């Protein structure tokens, strides 16, 4: 049992990260906290892919003498793309938050909704 838990330690961490991210995103009215939750959630996914690609005892996938087990480089390349997408999303999200702050004077979702209902 202990072996099972410790052997899958990365997956436990990934699940915890994803759930923390999702929970933050759904429960917090503050828009910046929502973005933070989204980022944590995406980080969980990135770790998930990297875990898939890891081969026990494998080295970095560069051809060199004396090494014949390599980790799978494809998930890492895929995550490079996903990280870039994540950066773009976060930047765009924060840009929107700055504009929302300028337009409404608040970034708490419940207050925003109240202001929208009034008009």
């Amino acid at each position, binding site marked *: 049992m202990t072996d099972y838990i410790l052997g899958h330690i990365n997956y436990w961490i990934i699940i915890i990260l994803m759930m923390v991210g999702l929970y933050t995103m759904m429960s917090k009215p503050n828009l910046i906290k*929502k973005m933070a939750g*989204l980022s944590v959630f995406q980080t969980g996914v990135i770790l998930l892919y990297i875990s*898939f690609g890891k081969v026990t005892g494998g080295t970095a996938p560069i051809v060199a003498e004396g090494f014949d087990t390599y980790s799978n480089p494809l998930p890492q390349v895929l995550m490079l793309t996903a990280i870039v*997408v994540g950066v773009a*999303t976060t930047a*765009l999200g924060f840009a929107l938050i700055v504009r929302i702050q300028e337009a*409404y004077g608040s970034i708490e979702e419940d207050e925003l909704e109240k202001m*929208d209902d009034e008009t």
Partner: protein
Amino acid sequence: MIHEQLSVLLVVIPLLAAPITAMFNKLSWSWLITLLVCASCCFFSAWLLMDVANGEIIHYELGGWAPPWGIEYRIDALNALVALIVCIIALCTTIYSRKSVEQEILPYQHGMFYAAFQLCFLGLLGITLTGDIFNVFVFLEISSLASYALIAMGKNRKALTSSFHYLVLGTLGATFFLIGVGLAYAATGTLNMDDLAAKLPLVENIQMVHTAFALIIVGLALKAAIYPLHLWLPNAYSYAPTVISIFLSATATKVAIYVLIRCLFNVFSLEYVLTTWLPQIMTVLGAVAILYGSVRAIGQTGMKKMLAYSSVAQIGYMIMGIGFLSQQGLTASIVHLFNHALMKGALFMAAGLYIYRVNTATFENLKGMGREMPYTFFAMLIAALSLIGVPGTVGFVSKWQLINAALEQQQWGMVVIILLGSLLAIVYVWKLVEVLYFQSAEKIRVQGVESGSERIGSSPLGMTSAMWILALACIYFGFNTELTLGTAGTAVDLLFSAGGTK
């Protein structure tokens, strides 16, 4: 030489043009570049459709790397049809956009607006053409990121909050899709759709594949705004700049539905889908979406929001068609995907013209505008009749197919709901007609239009002509169903024959 490169050119042309557009900041230049890009893409995609209309499949290896290692573009009748409709709508939107953009977007943003528009267009085309499931994610995010930025350019400050909601939910959907793809990759070791289809049956009983399936479907459902996951759609479409409402409502959700069809029938096989509860769930959700969307549309006080809720209902028809899992149901869905793009495009264009003239599209301010703008009103009426499904318009073709599909499976309840949906559509279309034509105008209607502005007396030619092209297409494709039904039939035959054999 061009002939072999057709598929990639569709993505490369906007990719080359977008950075150039971003550097110019003059409306006339960026508009012209976008027009050229859309026109050439339209031409190429029509050419592509002719090549594959007889059931052929084109494979294009990017960078010369053979699949399953390299990324390939795989085009059959289904992709080509979806790509064509995206291109047609993009072209009409661009023709329409000039005056509307001049009015609604701040001058210093014109270049960036058109660059983002092209990126969104590029992303949507990329999704339709690619045969690599991770590539779908990348293009999905390119188009979505561009559309978040575009929606946020709307004049009303609510555009910002609705864009933010769309961003959070859209990213959540895309990330779910990404986890699903990752699990499928872990189970099979491949990302190529054909290769996945070949390898998934070998492992289809392990838990990981079920999870992958569920996550992929939920992620796509969020992007496609299928009923309980539609919450971002009405606000995003009604507060976006008009041009973007037209473009996104006619293409973005359709492309997500295309990916859904592709994943259900090509990646996961028909047999696999039949072992799950998904078909029943989709039919029921489709039915609920039809009723919910139509009822909410009736209750709206603004034209754009009414149209956005009607989109939720129309997506319901498509989902119901997929849920039947029969050849006829799927044909109905694909044809409706094409037809709905035409009519929703035309309707949003009409809404945009009213906004151009009176600065708002709430019903209070639109009273009697139909009599003042008879041509716009008439084009809108054609598209609205098509939304109801009056014979002689495109809406009738796809609804007739859908009803037949329901009858074939003897799902009487669904037949009733489809007919009820049409009745509800009559109600909200009537509300629109009554406000625009039968109620008498009020004096205070025009707000914020400077006196002496060219907007007072006339509608610009570009806007009206683009709207009429789509409105007439609604009638033309209602009588000549060869292109839509024929191609959709070929596509469906391919999808059903592919299941299990390859």
